[in-house]
């Protein structure tokens, strides 16, 4: 039998196995439902369909909360007015600042707790009842009247991130509003333009680089992690002419087919919910495609080294959790460049969101391709060495 004939037969077997694998995957309707429901719900949540600030927000002075696109809670902020100084005739400037804060309270953007006791506010801050407090210092009005800057005392609780962000955002907005209304421009009248923020789908825009790869990688590697270790009839395949390389390759291709459809759903839904990107949709698709491929290969590797399905799941959670934590809290570029989640996240920001050329980040593509080859070969070797139980 010639080489060509052998290759033909191999392709024929791969086609058969591919159809079988797809049928096996699609047969589990409930699992398929969850696989497809996950990205749909993710996009709907980030798109603001169930609430939050998914599509709204101003482009100018919205502060941190609207920049993030997130639905931050209304912060409670303490306020002490220590100013008794005189400066401007017939007006009490510190009172105007207090009233400005009250205006925002009436607009339900902040909850102001007025006090004249800093110790009391410190206790409230320590208990988490307020997330920040402001002290209007003595000489507030006088300093401003003689064209001198005034420094407000602002103490913020950093223990709760959402409260911290929300309170800092609203304090910025109140101060800006107060300065503008009273024409206190300072030496430098900052005219800050927050560039490159999309008009629509801000929440999607801010969440896409972290959550899209997270969902794609998680589904791909979790499903992939069960493909070998849970496939009981695979040992019977050893009786057929199909070799182990063909078996593992078809598992990869069939799951990648499903993942491709999932990526398409993700992208189409995001488009309809207003996601705006500077890069091309094709580049975005390929980044997610590569992420899915890497996820499946990681999964197959875990599946080939695990003895039990539970063990494969635990390996998955180890890899997955480790990556999430690393992406959120670690800055070491060497570690991050080796992690598919961090790599994909970086590629999405650079190429899809910023619109840079794919060539500008070729090194990260190279790392991902190398990982694909290394882990696939490793998965194949481990799978090949597994004893067939017949």
């Amino acid at each position, binding site marked *: 039998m010639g080489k060509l004939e052998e290759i033909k037969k191999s392709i024929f077997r791969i086609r058969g196995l591919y159809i079988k694998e797809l049928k096996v995957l699609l047969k589990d309707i409930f699992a398929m439902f969850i696989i497809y429901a996950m990205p749909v719900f993710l996009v709907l949540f980030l798109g603001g369909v169930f609430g939050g600030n998914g599509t709204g927000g101003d482009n100018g002075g919205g502060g941190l909360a609207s920049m993030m696109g997130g639905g931050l809670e209304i912060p409670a902020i303490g306020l002490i007015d220590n100013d008794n100084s005189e400066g401007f005739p017939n007006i009490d400037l510190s009172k105007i600042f207090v009233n400005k804060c009250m205006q925002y309270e009436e607009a339900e953007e902040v909850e102001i707790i007025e006090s004249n006791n800093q110790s009391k506010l410190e206790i409230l801050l320590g208990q988490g009842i307020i997330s920040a407090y402001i002290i209007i210092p003595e000489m507030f009005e006088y300093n401003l009247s003689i064209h001198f800057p005034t420094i407000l005392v602002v103490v*913020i609780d950093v223990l709760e991130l959402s409260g911290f962000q929300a309170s800092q955002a609203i304090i910025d907005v109140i101060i800006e509003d107060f300065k503008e209304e009273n024409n206190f421009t*300072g030496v430098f009248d900052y005219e800050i333009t927050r*560039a490159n923020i999309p008009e629509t789908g801000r929440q999607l825009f801010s969440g896409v680089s972290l959550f899209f790869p997270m969902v794609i990688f998680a589904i791909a590697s979790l499903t992939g992690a*069960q493909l070998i270790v849970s496939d009981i009839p695979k040992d019977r395949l050893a009786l057929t002419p199909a070799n182990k390389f063909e078996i593992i390759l078809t598992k990869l291709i069939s799951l990648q087919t499903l993942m491709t459809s999932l990526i398409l759903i993700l992208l189409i839904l995001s488009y309809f919910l207003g996601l705006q990107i500077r890069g091309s949709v094709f580049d975005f698709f390929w980044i997610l495609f590569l992420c899915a491929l890497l996820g499946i290969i990681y999964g197959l590797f875990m599946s080939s080294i695990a003895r039990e399905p539970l063990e494969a799941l635990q390996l998955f959670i180890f890899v997955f*959790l480790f990556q999430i934590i690393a992406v959120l*809290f670690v800055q070491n570029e060497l570690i991050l460049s080796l992690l598919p989640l961090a790599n994909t996240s970086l590629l999405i920001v650079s190429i899809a969101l*910023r619109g840079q050329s794919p060539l500008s980040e070729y090194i990260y593509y190279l790392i991902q391709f190398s990982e694909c080859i290394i882990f696939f070969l490793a998965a194949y070797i481990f799978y090949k060495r597994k004893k067939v139980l017949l």
Partner: protein
Amino acid sequence: MSIDIRSLKERRRRIFSLIRKELDTLVKDKVSMVILFIIPICVITLIGVGEFSLIGGLVELYIIDYDDSDESQEFIDTFKYNTTAEVSVKVKEDFNMTAEEFEEQAKEKLPTEEIVAYIILIENFSENLKNNKSTELPIFIDYIDFFSAFSAQASIIDATVHYQIINQQFESDLFYFPVMKPVESLNILQIAAPFLVSIMIFACINLITTQCIVGDKPLKRLLTTPTFRFEVIIGKIISYSILAIIQIVLILLFLEFVFGIQYRCLFIELFLMLLLFAVNSVVIGVFFSSISSSRLQSSQLFLFFFIMMLVITQIVRIPVIVNFLPLEQATAAFVDLAYRGKTLIDIWPNLLNLSIITLFFFIINVVYFQYIKKEFV
């Protein structure tokens, strides 16, 4: 001699046997045990010795000088040499360009990673400062990467304040330099610990538990013995909770003794709160396992719930949903107990919330397993 299989004593005996059987099975799986306890150690160590990625880093910015005066040069020098923040400044001379060309380049580069922001020093910069004691300062910041933008804005304001102090140029203005409290919380592990501990306990325990029914092959045979279905549920919940106890103690001790995280509450209080959260993770896991017909389904249910919980607690924060998520409750309760020094009584709303969710899923588990799940018949 006949034994009343419904007597409390018999039920207790059977449940104890079930727990022993479950624990035997779990402990036998050495790899699982290692992974279950290694995950928290690795993750905590990674953050404890690592660097924080959200704040800081070098801020790359362009300053486009249309004024070409001594004052504008001094302003640029303040950014280059005097700022306390890490800033890298490029000016038109670095590229041999005119101010107009340089502004065009800045516009083009702003969406890329090369610069985070650019500042324009307008034509009358020095004149305005001399005559009006004030000048406009157009600043363009790229907000694609929110945290870089945040750093850039802080660095620019820091440098301009520095310039004013050096040159004794003041005008009516309002500043604030936020004081972060508590001061010791600036340690990243300390800030991350409430979220980190909660997420690790939930992920590890919930994922393992999702396999407890769907992956229990001898369960079918077990149900032919005089064992009631709800006893099986109770047995599983207790045995997985015992596993959680070991994990919680390990995490808390590791945080305290290796990384010096100090708890402002009694250790037992923090432990009990996390135990309630772990039991909550177990009952939700048992629920996923009950309604699934394959291992893959149950682990996907875990993944679905886990990712949605992350999205809602970290970004979307829909008020109606977020307060009913165990991760949110456990994180808030951890902060209140460990850092604010509150007691279990003070955090009763969080505990009540977690208890209600736990009870709700427990009842669903018992009802579903007792009356709806027919696969074992």
